[in-house]
C-alpha cells in the first residue's frame, strides 16, 4: 500500500508574470509521492512550497512539465475534471483554517460530503466519526467564531479527512497555532495517516512540523535541494 505511487511530478516549472518580466517559482521539479506518505515540502518563504502544493492540488497549472495525480495528468484535465478529483480524492488544510463562518462545526465538516451527494444518515455518521478523530464531538453545534485557533484547525482537519481522501495537502497548518496546539494537531494527523493510510503532504518551515515528517523535501529557489527520508 505504502509503495504505490499516487503523485508524480515531472520537470515541473511554474512562472508568474511580474510586471513586464516573469518570476520563476518552480524550476524543473521531479518528485514522486506514494500512498500513505507523511511528507513535507520545506524551505524559506518564496521557495515555491505553496505553488507546488497548489499544482498538486489541481488549483493551479504548471507552465512546463506535468503533475500526474492519481493517474491523471494535470495538464489534460478540464476545470470540471480537476474539481471532481479534488472533491473525491483530496482534502485541504490551510494556514488560516478557511472555515465557512456562517456554518456550525458539524456543517463545516459535512460540507465535502454534501458535494458528494451522500445520504443524510451516511453524512451524519461520517461527520460524527471525523469530529471524534479530532476530539471535537462536544463542539458540533458551535460556530467557528466561538472556537480557539487550535479547535478551528482541528475542524479543518476533520473537514479534510471526513471523506477519507487519498491525499491531504496542508499548507502551513501550524503557522497560527501555539506549540501545544501544533503538537496536538500534528499528532492527530499522524494518527489518521497511520489508521487511514492517507497521504499527507505539508508545505511548512515550522520545525515542529518537520519533527513529525517521515520524508522531508527541501526547496530552495524553486528547486529541490534535498529529498530525505527522516523516518522509515
Amino acid at each position, binding site marked *: 500500500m505504502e509503495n504505490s505511487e499516487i503523485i508524480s511530478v515531472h520537470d515541473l516549472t511554474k512562472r508568474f508574470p511580474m510586471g513586464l518580466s516573469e518570476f520563476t517559482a518552480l524550476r524543473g521539479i521531479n518528485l514522486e509521492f506514494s500512498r500513505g506518505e507523511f511528507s513535507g515540502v520545506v524551505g524559506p518563504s518564496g521557495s515555491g512550497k505553496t505553488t507546488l502544493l497548489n499544482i498538486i*492540488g489541481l*488549483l493551479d497549472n504548471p507552465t512546463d512539465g506535468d503533475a500526474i495525480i492519481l493517474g491523471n495528468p494535470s495538464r489534460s484535465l478540464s*476545470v*470540471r475534471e480537476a*474539481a471532481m478529483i479534488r472533491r473525491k480524492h483530496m482534502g*485541504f488544510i490551510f494556514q488560516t483554517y478557511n472555515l465557512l463562518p456562517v456554518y456550525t462545526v458539524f456543517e463545516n465538516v459535512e460540507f465535502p460530503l454534501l*458535494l458528494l451527494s451522500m445520504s443524510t444518515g451516511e453524512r451524519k455518521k461520517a461527520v460524527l466519526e471525523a469530529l471524534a478523530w479530532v476530539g471535537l464531538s462536544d463542539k458540533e453545534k458551535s460556530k467557528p467564531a466561538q472556537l480557539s485557533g487550535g479547535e478551528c484547525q482541528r475542524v479543518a482537519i476533520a473537514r479534510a479527512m471526513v471523506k477519507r481522501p487519498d491525499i491531504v495537502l496542508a499548507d502551513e497548518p501550524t503557522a497560527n497555532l501555539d506549540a501545544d496546539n501544533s503538537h496536538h494537531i500534528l499528532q492527530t494527523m499522524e494518527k489518521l495517516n497511520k489508521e487511514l493510510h492517507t497521504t499527507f503532504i505539508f508545505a511548512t518551515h515550522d520545525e515542529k512540523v518537520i519533527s513529525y515528517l517521515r520524508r522531508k523535501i527541501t526547496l530552495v529557489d524553486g528547486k529541490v535541494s534535498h529529498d530525505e527520508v527522516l523516518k522509515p
Partner: protein
Amino acid sequence: MLAFKLAYKNLVGAGLRTWLNVFVLSLALVIIVMTWGIVEGWNVQAKHDMKEWAVGGGEYWNEKYDQYDPLSLNDGHGSIPPEIAKLCSSGEAVPVLITQATAYPGGRMRNILLNGIDPSQQIVKMPTSVMNGDTSVINAIIGTRMAKATKLSVNDMVSIRWRDAKGTFDATEIRIAGIFHSNVPNIDINQIWLPLDELQKMTSMKGQATYIILKQGMTSAPTVPGWIHKGYDVLFEEFDRVIKAKHASSSVVFLILLSLALLAVFDTQVLSIFRREKEIGTYIALGMTRWQVVWLFTVEGAMHAVLSVVAGAIWGTPLLYLLSKNGFAMPKGSEGYGFTLAEKIFPVYGAGTIIITAVVIMLATTIVSFIPSRKIARMKPTDALRGKAQ
C-alpha cells in the same frame, strides 16, 4: 438543491445585511401591488358607478348622435322606435333627449346641456323622482359639481334659453328640485336634468330621444334601424384610456422602486464577492466547480427576492387588507378632475398582479445577482484563497 440549501444558510448567516435588502425588496413589492391595486380599484369602482349612474346596461344612440361631437346634437335625435318604446314601457330602458342651452345662474351666462329623462325611471341612480313635485314650474335636478360651479341650491330658480327643433329661441325659468351627488362627472358638469316630456315640449321634439339607456343585466340588444347599440367597450373607451395611462405611470413608479431595491441587491453582491474571496477559494478547493460557486452566489442573491415575497406577505397582507377594507381617501378637490373618481378608492388586488409582480422581482433580482457573480468564474482559485483575486 444543494445551492439553495447553502444559499439559504449563507443568507441567514449574513444577518442584518440580508434583512435590510429583504425589507427594501418587500417594500417595493408591497408598494407596487398597492399602486396597481389602487388603479384597479379605481377602474372597478368607476365602471360600477358609471353603470349605476349613467350607462346602465348599455345604450342605443340615434345614428346621427355622437357623444364626443357636440355638433351632432342638432340632428342626433329621432322618434323612439316601437321596439325600444316597448322596452321603455316595461321598465327595461329609459330614453334621454339632449339639447344645447344656456343657463343664467346669478345673471351669468353658462353653456349647458339640457337632458330630458323620465322622472319615474329606475334604470339609473339619479333621483329623478324629485322632478315629479310642484307641477306649476319645471323641476330640474343637477349634480353637486354643477351646483358648486353655478352656486345654485335646492328651490333656486334659474333662467334657461334654448332653440327648438325649428331653430327658434325660447326661454323659461326652472326650479332646482334636487341636487344629487355622483362620482360620474359626465352627468353632472354643465348638465341640467328635466322631465323628458317637458323637454320634448320645449324643443318641439315630441316622442323623440337622443339616446336610450338600457337596464343593467340585459343580455340581448335587438337591432333597431336608425339606432346603434353601444356596449361597454364603446361607453368605457375614454375611461379605459385614462386607466391605461394610469397603469403606464404606475409602471414608472414600479421601475423606480424596483431599480432602487435592485441597486441594493447588486451592491450587496459586489461587496459580498469582494469580502468572501477566501470563502470562494475554499469552495473551489473543496471540489465545487467555479460555475457551481457562481450559481451559489446567484441563488443567494435571488433568495433575497424569495425572502422578500415571504416578508412582504407577512407585513404587507394585513396592510393591504386594511386598505382594501377602509379605502384610500382621494385628495380634496379630486371630484373636479373631470373623470369618474370616488372620494375613497378601495384597492382591488388581483392574484395575477401579485404573481406577476413577485415573478418580475425574482427574475430581476436573479439577473442582478448573476451579473457580479460571473466574476467568480474568472477568479484564480489560488488568488481567491489568498484573498487577492481582485
